[in-house]
């Protein structure tokens, strides 16, 4: 039991980062990015190709992070431009359609050009014993990186001027304009950040299990489930929901079976929505 809970925490931290990238973009601009998983996969693939070209893992991973950020920026500058011209529900809907289209195009290309590739970063080292459970070095390193990322995000949003500016746009866009903040610039920054977070998920995930080029949609769906349970637009909610669902997923996988884990996650999401429609930490409108 302790082992599956620890595994669940490892997974849950990654779920949290995955969902944070989605929920920020939605909270800030009312845009749901269904190509989010594909950004993660492409970043992972570029990391792999860079390593195959002869670079060591750490610089290759940095190239992967930059790839994620650049992809976010490209989305902002291209297919999201018509989305920004719409407001409210029309904006959400158009963002769903356009990013879904982009996701299909990216998936198709990856399946055609790199059908068998998968990023698998093997971290060598003896297993570490935590609470009497032997944890693989890969899981420990992945969790360490993820915890640092969460810490940095927390510091950014809580204590920096830029972080406050971003939160102000989420809370009241017109108010933020009145104090001199350009919501469009904040949105661009958040899309870059979201792309980097997607890349971080792909890279840390590949330290635990291989991330293949077909993982895009399942990553997006996982991110959406965690986001909805945590409350759309809530960053702490994303991390809380990530941990809860990670543990549920891991415990269910080891006691019931892996084949049911996605269904169990969906059931957990459905129950949350029935009990708390705004999500765990979401703000009721």
């Amino acid at each position, binding site marked *: 039991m302790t082992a599956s809970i620890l595994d669940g925490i490892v997974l849950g931290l990654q779920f949290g980062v995955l969902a944070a990238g989605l929920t920020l973009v939605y909270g800030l601009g009312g845009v749901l990015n269904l190509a989010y998983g594909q950004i993660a996969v492409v970043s992972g693939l570029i990391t792999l190709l860079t390593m195959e070209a002869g670079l060591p893992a750490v610089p290759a991973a940095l190239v992967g992070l930059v790839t994620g950020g650049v992809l976010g920026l490209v989305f902002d500058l291209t297919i999201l431009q018509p989305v920004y011209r719409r407001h409210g529900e029309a904006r959400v809907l158009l963002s769903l359609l356009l990013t879904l289209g982009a996701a299909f195009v990216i998936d198709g290309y990856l399946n055609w050009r790199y059908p068998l590739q998968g990023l698998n970063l093997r971290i060598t080292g003896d297993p570490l014993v935590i609470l009497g459970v032997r944890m693989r070095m890969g899981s420990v390193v992945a969790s360490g990186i993820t915890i640092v990322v969460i810490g940095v995000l927390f510091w950014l949003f809580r204590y920096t*001027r830029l972080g*406050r*500016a971003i*939160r*102000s746009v989420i*809370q*009241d866009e*017109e*108010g*933020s*304009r*009145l*104090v*001199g*903040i*350009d*919501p469009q610039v904040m949105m661009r920054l958040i899309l870059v950040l979201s792309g980097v977070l997607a890349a971080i998920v792909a890279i840390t995930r590949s330290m635990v299990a291989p991330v293949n080029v077909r993982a895009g949609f399942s990553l997006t769906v996982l991110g959406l489930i965690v986001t909805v349970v945590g409350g759309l637009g809530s960053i702490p909610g994303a991390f809380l929901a990530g941990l809860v669902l990670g543990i549920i997923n891991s415990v269910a996988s080891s006691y019931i079976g892996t084949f049911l884990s996605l269904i169990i996650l969906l059931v957990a999401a459905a129950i949350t929505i029935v009990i708390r429609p705004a999500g765990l930490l979401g*703000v009721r409108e």
Partner: protein
Amino acid sequence: MLEVQGVSAGYQGSDVVRDVSFRVDEGETVMIIGSNGAGKTTLFRAVCGLLPLSSGRVTFLGEDITGLPAQKVVRRGLAFVPAERHLFPQMTVEENLVLGAYPDKPDSEVLETVLELFPRLGERFRQLAGTMSGGEQQMLAVGRALMSRPRLLVLDEPTTGLAPIVARNAYAALGRLQEQGLTILVAEQQVPLALAISDRGYVLENGAIGLAGTSSELASDPRVRSAYLGIA
């Protein structure tokens, strides 16, 4: 200081205000009075860059700011306090004030002045803005606007939803800002309050300026007396 010439603006292609011109000089307090739906809010939103103009020109400090978005207008020294306040409800009073100075670091002297003007904000410094009373939120909205060190403070119906005594206190605070030399433009339905502190005024009726004059001229005008002051 502010010159508005022939401004028309509205929503979905139909103009709510038509061909409105007025001006505010340095050091003055100017009011725009009018009943509900006269177009005061639309006019202010257009002047402050929250709403595109369909025609006309806005000049501020000698520069053309027509069509400049709100986030740039405030950096030129024109701070707008909307009637709905648009505070950041899940942030503390402190964070709201700090954001008022964006993108600069908050000036500690300005912050002190704001807390002197509204001691209540100091008492509630760490409280979330969304949990405060209407009067306190209005103080915070004005305080946040002052943090940008504006040359001109524009207020849209600052007394909306406030109890009469709270409304009078709000105007007392505006009076103190006026004494400190701040130029103020205020739209108001509660005309007696605005008349007491302003030098000049314009009456906005059905989206157009119907009457203009000094405050004493307006106070003695029979139309203003019957329509806005309740004196027959």
